[in-house]
């Protein structure tokens, strides 16, 4: 460890959707590493301290080393000539880069989707049908005396949700911190999060919808079928108690995760929860918040929504945005073999997508921008090494509650940012489309 260090205060960690902006980073300038991340949780610590200046080629084209400029040319050619290009990812990069990605996709009449579609997309769909009563995290810290965690394991996925935002901290109306709160955890298995809850409710897998709907009924003073106990594994008495606590608290919060979106029911589950939170406002003040996974997936939601009107699953093929989950979402497009080129930004679908989707991805030209080697970079035709947002690159990110925060980078990087690469690709694609007569997306001809 060298003496040559600097400290970057109030930096932002973008590993998960908590987007904690109170990181005090100690940087070893000689080793070019972050050696300490004060205030970070175990995940954030790994995010910062495991970041090494990898020696990677600036770009790889068909597995061979190339310059960034050569990569840009190759990428632009692919995108300008594709008939059904898709853009995917965007959750681990800055809003500035996200805007460039939307611009490119608009220009080429492509398909635009973000990791939301495999995360809280169902909650976004439910939102469109129900609305949502929600709050910024500080409101929960300041006021919530009842918190229900549903379908999530914050101890392992969002540790500081407990410590900085929702459960432990003292707040304006919560002078004694956790002692002034009652916490409930609902899940199919007892996770490391369960011990912090005052009450753990175990539900049978795939029955969250029934439980939530029963709670809605109980909140409205209706009776529920006792057979529900057998079906869901939850005692009616427990539900009655929970409903009563929810109605009589001063400010309640329901924080929910993938346990609802990734299982039978998907958006129906999210919708049931959101409706429950909204219903409770007949009795008290109650909010719900989807707990977002990646650092800037909320930024992607926001940027894409304000630029197109829709949050994800968008197609520009007719010259304007169209929205249809199931049709224009990436897992579907790939599984059905429809895309003929892919621009993947800050994401690794080859790792986490279903097999049929990955098989098709392997068969089409893939352009990927990533800070690290991944399964997707290995199958890509053009792979760009880019600098890491929040560590090397400044920009804007949105926390899970839509609060926008400006990043404070700690280390320089020789690699370009996603924004720089995407801007260059955009400009080159524009040139190629303007030189019309090139086969490709008919809508693109209007750009000439």
């Amino acid at each position, binding site marked *: 460890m060298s003496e040559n260090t600097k400290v970057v*205060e*109030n930096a932002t960690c973008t590993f998960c959707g908590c987007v904690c*902006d*109170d990181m005090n980073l100690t940087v070893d300038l000689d080793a070019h590493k972050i050696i300490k991340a004060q205030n970070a949780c175990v995940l954030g610590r790994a995010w910062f301290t495991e970041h090494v200046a990898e020696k990677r080629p600036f770009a790889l084209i068909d597995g061979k080393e190339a310059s960034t400029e050569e990569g840009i040319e190759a990428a632009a050619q692919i995108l300008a000539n594709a008939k059904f290009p898709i853009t995917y990812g965007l959750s681990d990069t800055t*809003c500035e880069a996200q805007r460039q990605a939307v*611009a490119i996709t*608009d*220009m080429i009449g492509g398909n635009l989707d973000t990791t939301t579609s495999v995360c809280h997309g169902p909650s*976004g769909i439910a*939102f*469109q*049908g*129900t*609305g949502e*009563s*929600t*709050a*910024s*995290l*500080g*409101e929960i*810290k*300041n*006021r919530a005396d009842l918190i229900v965690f549903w379908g999530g394991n914050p101890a392992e996925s969002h540790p500081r949700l407990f410590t*900085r935002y929702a459960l432990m901290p003292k*707040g*304006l109306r919560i002078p004694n911190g956790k002692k002034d709160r009652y916490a409930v955890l609902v899940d199919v298995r007892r996770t490391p999060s369960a011990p912090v809850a005052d009450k753990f409710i175990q539900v049978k897998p795939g029955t969250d919808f029934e439980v939530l709907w029963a709670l809605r009924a109980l909140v409205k003073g209706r009776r529920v079928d006792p057979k529900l106990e057998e079906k869901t594994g939850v005692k009616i008495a427990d539900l009655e108690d929970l409903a009563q606590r929810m109605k009589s608290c*001063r*400010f309640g919060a329901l924080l929910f995760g993938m346990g609802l979106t990734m299982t039978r029911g998907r958006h129906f589950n999210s919708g049931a929860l959101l409706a429950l939170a*909204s219903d409770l*406002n007949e009795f*008290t*003040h109650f*909010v719900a918040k989807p707990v977002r996974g990646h650092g800037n997936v909320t930024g992607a939601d*926001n940027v894409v*929504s*304000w*630029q*197109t*009107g*829709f*949050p994800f699953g968008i197609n*520009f093929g007719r*010259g*304007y*945005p*169209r*929205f249809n989950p199931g049709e224009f979402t990436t897992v579907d497009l790939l599984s059905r073999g429809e895309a003929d080129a892919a621009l993947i930004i800050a994401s690794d679908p080859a790792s986490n997508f279903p097999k049929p989707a990955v098989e098709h991805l392997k068969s089409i030209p893939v352009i990927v921008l990533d800070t690290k080697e991944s399964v997707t970079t290995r199958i890509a035709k053009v792979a760009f090494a880019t600098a890491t947002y929040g560590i090397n690159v400044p920009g*804007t990110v*949105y*926390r899970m509650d*839509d*609060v*926008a*925060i*400006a990043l404070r980078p700690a280390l320089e990087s020789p690699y370009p940012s996603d924004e720089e690469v995407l801007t260059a690709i955009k400009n080159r694609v524009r040139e190629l489309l303007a030189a019309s007569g090139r086969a490709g997306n008919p*809508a693109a001809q*209007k*750009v*000439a």
Partner: protein
Amino acid sequence: MGSKLRIVNGRLYDPANGVDGEVRDLCVEDGRIVESVGPDAKKIEAQGMVIMPGGVDIHCHIAGPKVNLARKLQPESHRYDVQPRTAFTRSGTGGTVPSTFTTGYRYATLGYTTAMEAAVPPIGARHTLEELHDTPVIDKGFYVLLGNNVLLNQLMKEGRRDELRQAVAWWLNATRAYTIKLVNPGGDEPWKGQRNAVITDLDQNIDSFDITPRQVITSLIEVANELGLPHPAHIHCNNLGHSGNYKTTLETMRMAGDSRVHITHIQFHSYGGEPGKNPTSMAPEIAAYVNDHPNVSADVGQVMFGKSTIMTADAPVAHLLRRLGSDKRWVNSDTECESGCGIIPFSYQEHIYTHALQWAIGLELFLLTKDPWRMVLSTDHPNGGSFMSYPRLIRLLMDRDFRDEQIKLVNQRAIRKTTLADGLSREYTLNEIAIVTRAGPARLLGLKNKGHLGVGAEADITIYEEDEDKEKMFTAPRYVLKDGKLIIEDHEFRGDNEGRILHVAPAYDPEIEKVIKPFFESYYSIRFENYAVTDHYLRAHEEIATAKPMAAE
């Protein structure tokens, strides 16, 4: 730049400079109006056309966290109103909450060149600026919500008057806002902290703060005045939408004394009748007060039949409305220590008593005003209706026959409760339209180089083809220029433009940060150091100077 332009043979309406339909040349150079230009200047033939300064929307909701929630909520409204991309313009979608590119282009298409986002919580300023940057062509700014700010409430309660002024100035700088906005002042704390309680009385205590809405309102009106802000405190009064609320509105206006104050969407605050019963119209009383008090200004907040979206920082009102519409969707979003908001998709229907009454009251306010400079046009977009309905509203004001026809189509019981039943026959002239849509808002905002076309003014110019049908005329200007650059020519987009952020930066004593920072550390969920908006988010911008502060008492 340098581009020189001479617009010839058009009829110029420039009320700020006393020009009322005179045929005269208008010359532009380097983005400004100039006395004359040489023969090498490009010519625009404007025979049979009407020239006005670019439109100025003093109150709309077009950017920021609450707007984006409303956008996401209504995919069905976007699906049927698409905006294809062109060589110069990005694609997008419409409805009552269009995507950002579409918002900017559509304002430009109507001949508007400036619009002010009316309500942003301070922590949402960064987001709002990002959206405004993606709202092309128009110059824009926003009003920052400070009427339910927990720290400011504490300073008010403790009588720390000087620190209050410093803190407000700090907040205006930290957010890059244009002025102070109050929405349902005092209403947030009971809503969030007392199980959705509402306040109805200007003199009731706001929960544990031991201050009243009256104190909040009077302090902030005074502070805005002391800071010499170009536009005064912009107030959405308490009791919006409730029968009998005209009393609250009158009382709020009285609180200002002789100080400048702006009452926004005053139509929603002009109701008589008993609380809980059907409203009646008190437009004549409200209009009379505004007429008699030159320090008071207002924008109407006209309701237009058809679809709208209720989006307001007045969260309790949105919750109440939830039961009234057929669309049961509802969004509520609280913002720590600062504000909240509520969103409901909505529509106003001719046959419904209350809707027809609201529509009629708005028209009454327009028709009864003696000073159009201080009763300017708005629909509180999209709460009363989309800004795309402005041309129709203009026709209602200018064309008495059309208006009378429309009156016959709506709920007659409602009409009978208003002076429209007596046959208000006034017709707005083009000069008056130019006042309520351009010159008036610009003057109220303190924008010295906008809303008029005298030498030195910014060359934001709209050229309409004259037409009997005023709705048609104002829907599609033939030419629109922004800073002297042709954006629309022969009804087609010719170029894009970024537009500037308009903001104020009143001086403040940096010592106030010693008061603000500890509060952050205890009660906010982001760091004080990360809160203020840096220059990076301003891009093209113009700081509008504050006047010399008035001597404190």
